[in-house]
Structures are given as structure tokens and as C-alpha cells.
């Protein structure tokens, strides 16, 4: 089981603008915590600060270890981060790109040890991109690239996984596949924090939700239908409705002025 991720008085500024304002929360291990909020709420900023790619004020700690005390590779062995955009510069093979997820362990493409090779193959299987292993990343569709990048993050084999809209570019089947990958990680004790816009995925896969608006944490609650129904009108100005068969829910939002 991973340690809990502690966020204390986290503030992120860009010049005079405050992107994230005094956020405090504890992300429990073995669960999927979704970050939900309107555009510009600070969701990606929060996850980028946790990933160590955005400067911040405040304290971030994994268990008792402040993240600021970790070297880049020590941090990368504990926390993996899947960015929202996949900025791939060269047409490297998918297998080599996934192998880059093992950088923090001293591995590099073409020179993988048995452990690294096994982690890479396992990650590609989990993300359903093993069949793409020998194709160049530039020759893939946007969805295929997203799966390959998810595999790279899974290959890092970290106790904490941060994902920024991992389902955005995917078809419905692959959206579920991607979320099932995160669910498997959390079932194995990992701390999973994920930015999601699809409320159905939030309801079906996450255990708790960090509700953000205007850079502030509005609430940190269980991800049940009642909680969603409560926060969606406030944050999005829309009225939610949902259909459920008792175990799974489908969420819709509509304009409150609609009849």
C-alpha cells in the first residue's frame, strides 16, 4: 500500500494571477480520487504541482516525506504523471517510448534489463497497445498515442499515479480500458489522482472527488450520485440527471432553462 499524499496550503501563481489558492487535502492510497471543476479551475495546475513540473508555495508530502526533499529520480520512482497533451518530437517506436518510463531506474531504450523489459511489456499489455509496439508514435492516431503514453506512465511502476484527462482522446471502449488500468493500480494500493471531465467516468470509477472552482478547493467528498448532483449546478450552472441500474450510473447535464 502506498502512503497518502498530503497537500497543505498549496498555492500556485503565474505572475500576478493566482492559479491555485491555499488548497489543503489528503489523497488516500488504494483509491481513485477525481479532480473535477470547470475550465480554468486549477485542475491541471494542481496535478502539475504534485508532479513537480510547476513551481508552488506550500507543502506536498508523500507519507512523512516532503516531495521537495526528493531528487528528480527519487521523485519519479514514487510519482508518475500523465500530462494532458502528448508532445512527442520524434517518430520513435512505441516500445522505445514506453521504455522511457523506466528512466528513473537507469534504463534507456535499447538497453533494458530483464526487470525493465518485463515492466514495459506488462504496461503495453495493460494499456492495450502491445500490438502497436513496433510502430512509430508519429504514425499513430491521437487515441493510440494516448494509450501508448498511458503505457509509459504505467511502466514507471510508481505507488502514486497522476493523470490529466487520460480519457479525453479515447473512444468509449478505450476510455473504459484506460480507467480500468487506473482502477487496477488503485486496487493494488496505489494512490491515483485523475482529472476528469466525463461525469459518468467520475461516478463509475472514482472513490472521492476534489471539487475545484476558481483555483479554490470547494469540497473533497465521496464520489456518489448525491454529491455530484449537489456540486454540478454550482460549478457548471447545469442541472444534472442520471440513469442508474443500481451499480453503474450514466450522467447527463442540461441547461436549467430547458423545459
Amino acid at each position, binding site marked *: 500500500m502506498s502512503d497518502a499524499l498530503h497537500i497543505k496550503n498549496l498555492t500556485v501563481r503565474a505572475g500576478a494571477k493566482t492559479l491555485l489558492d491555499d488548497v489543503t487535502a489528503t489523497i488516500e492510497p488504494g483509491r481513485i480520487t477525481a479532480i473535477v471543476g470547470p475550465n480554468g479551475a486549477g485542475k491541471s495546475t494542481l496535478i502539475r504541482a504534485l508532479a513537480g513540473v510547476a513551481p508552488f508555495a506550500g507543502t506536498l508530502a508523500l507519507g512523512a516525506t516532503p516531495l521537495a526533499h526528493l531528487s528528480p529520480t527519487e521523485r519519479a520512482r514514487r510519482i508518475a504523471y500523465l500530462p494532458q497533451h502528448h508532445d*512527442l518530437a520524434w517518430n520513435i517506436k512505441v516500445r522505445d517510448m514506453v521504455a522511457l518510463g523506466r*528512466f528513473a531506474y537507469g534504463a534507456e531504450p535499447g538497453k533494458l534489463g530483464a526487470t525493465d523489459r518485463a515492466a514495459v511489456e506488462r504496461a503495453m499489455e495493460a494499456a492495450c497497445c502491445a500490438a502497436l509496439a513496433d510502430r512509430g508514435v508519429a504514425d499513430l492516431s491521437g487515441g493510440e498515442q494516448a494509450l501508448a503514453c498511458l503505457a509509459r506512465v504505467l511502466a514507471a511502476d510508481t505507488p502514486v499515479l497522476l493523470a490529466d484527462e487520460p480519457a479525453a482522446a479515447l473512444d468509449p471502449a478505450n476510455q473504459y480500458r484506460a480507467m480500468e488500468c487506473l482502477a487496477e493500480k488503485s486496487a493494488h494500493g496505489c494512490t491515483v489522482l485523475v482529472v476528469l471531465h466525463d461525469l459518468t467516468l467520475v461516478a463509475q470509477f472514482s472513490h472521492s472527488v476534489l471539487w475545484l472552482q476558481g483555483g479554490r478547493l470547494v469540497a473533497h467528498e465521496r464520489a456518489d450520485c448525491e454529491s455530484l448532483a449537489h456540486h454540478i449546478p454550482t460549478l457548471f450552472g447545469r442541472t444534472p440527471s442520471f440513469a442508474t441500474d443500481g451499480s453503474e450510473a450514466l450522467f447527463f447535464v442540461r441547461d436549467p432553462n430547458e423545459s
Partner: protein
Amino acid sequence: MTAARLNPALALLLVVAALGAVMFGPDGAAPRLVVDAIGGSDRAAAIILLDIRLPRVLAAAIVGGALGLCGAALQALTRNPLAEPGILGVSAAATLGATLTLYFGIAAALPWVLPIGAIVGALLATSLLAVAAMRTQGMATLILVGVGLSSLSGALMALILNFAPNPFSLSDLINWTLGSVANRSLGDLVFTAPLVLAGCVILLGQRAHLSLLAIGETAAIAHGLDARRTRIAVIAGTGIATGAAVALAGAVGFVGIVAPHLVRPWAGHDPGRTLLPSATLGALLLVLADLLVRLLPTDTELRLGVVAALAGAPVFTMIALRRGRGAHV
């Protein structure tokens, strides 16, 4: 051919080309010269082989290897296949640094100052480019910064030429800017080769880091890249190797763009695995180019830098056009 066989194959070709370049020349071909030189029966043959051709071939290989490696490293750092010491103005700044030491007569009194001048010029240019690369996502902007840097160095060079104290000095300075490995001695190599080697070792040590940059700097940092340290190492390695190469041969362009472009498909497009074969191919290309300029029956020997530019400029244009069409090259 697999990526694993690429390096040995290129190394073999380089050895064969270098032996050929030592054996053949306008003054006659082996085996007669070799037999005479080794047998000691012809002192002139020994001078031609060991004092004229051998240092020249070694200089071409060292300069080509350095520029090929620097080109591959800069491309990996900036994530742009058009980056190269010549295109980005690093070679021009190094040439400016070297010619300043010539102009003020410091290099004549203290020969070791010339490579230092070239290295300082190259380091300043590379640092400026790295800052530009950090502040802009647009690669066109980076190329334009390089073009501006190159133009500024060119303008300052013109100023130096303008104030050259006499025609002989002017001729020396112009020859320096054209790029050549003619008349290089083993003493010149002893002075500059260790610096080139030091720069190359620094760059090859960044192999895995440059591979990781293929996924973008943000993702790379999240996977454990110390981006600042990598940037400094590549700037230092490129500055030292390019500066020392310019100190040895003057300005020779386009090797750094052609060599990585040719080896990239064989190296699986992995920027880290492109480094070493780019160095070997760069060395091979310049050894062959220098052999060509020696064998061409011209009244005045063509300059190596001129031949490299004539061959490399079309390749640069082709890559730019393919990039413009959205292709990964």
C-alpha cells in the same frame, strides 16, 4: 540493418575511408608511396603520408565527428531536426571568437588562445540558444534567433576584415572563414583533439537524457529528468566540441544537420541512439569530402567548408520543406 549493427558498420566504413584518404592524393597513390615511406627509401614519401595527409585526414575525421555529434545533440535538446551548430550560429560565433584572437595577434604569440577564443564564442552562442529554446515553443523562432546570431557574428567578422591591418592578414582571416583542414599538423591535433574529445564525452553522457526529451520537457521532468543539468551539459559539450572543431578547421557547416538526418531512421529515431552514429557518419562525410577536394583537378584547391555547404544546403532545404508539410523527419 539493425540499430545494433549501425555503429560497427559506420566505424568500418570510416576506417576504410580514412585509409583510402591517406593512400590517395594528388601527389600519387599507394602502394608505391606507402612502400617507399615505410622502407625509408623515400623521405619525401614519408613526409607526404605522415606529415601532410595523415594529420589532414585525422583533422577531417575529428571535425566531422564533432560537428555530427553536436548537431545530433542540439537537435535532441531543441527537439528540432533543423538545429545544427552552423545553422544556429554557433560555428559563426566560434569563428568570430577565433578570428578576434588572430586579429589582435594574440594567437600568434600564444597559440592556445585561439581554441579558447573559439570555445568562448561557441559557448556564448549555445547559451543564448538554450535560453531562446526555453522561452519559445516555436522552432521557427529558434531558427530565426540562430540566423540573427549568425548574421551578427558575420557582421562583426566583416568589421574585423574591414580593419585588417594588411592584405596578408586579410587573406588569412578570409581563409579561416571558408573552412579547411589543409596544412594541419599533428601538433595542431594534439592541441585541439583533447578538447573535442572532452566535449564529445560530455554529450555522449547525456544520451539517455536526450532520449527522454523526445516525450516533451514536462513529461521528461516528471520521469526524473534534471532538465537544467541536461541543458547545461549539452551547452557545455556543444560549445567545447564545436569551438575546438572550429579552431582546427574554421567554419564548416551542414555536417551537423546531414549526418543525424541520414542515421536517424537506422537508429529508430531515438535521439540518444542517434548521437554516436551521427559522430561516425559526420567523420566519414568530411573525410570523403576532403579527399574529393584534394583529388579534384582545380587550379586552387576547393575549401572543405565550401563543399560541405554546397552539399548540405539542399538537404537542409529538403528537411525544412518536409517539416512544413507536417512530416516527422
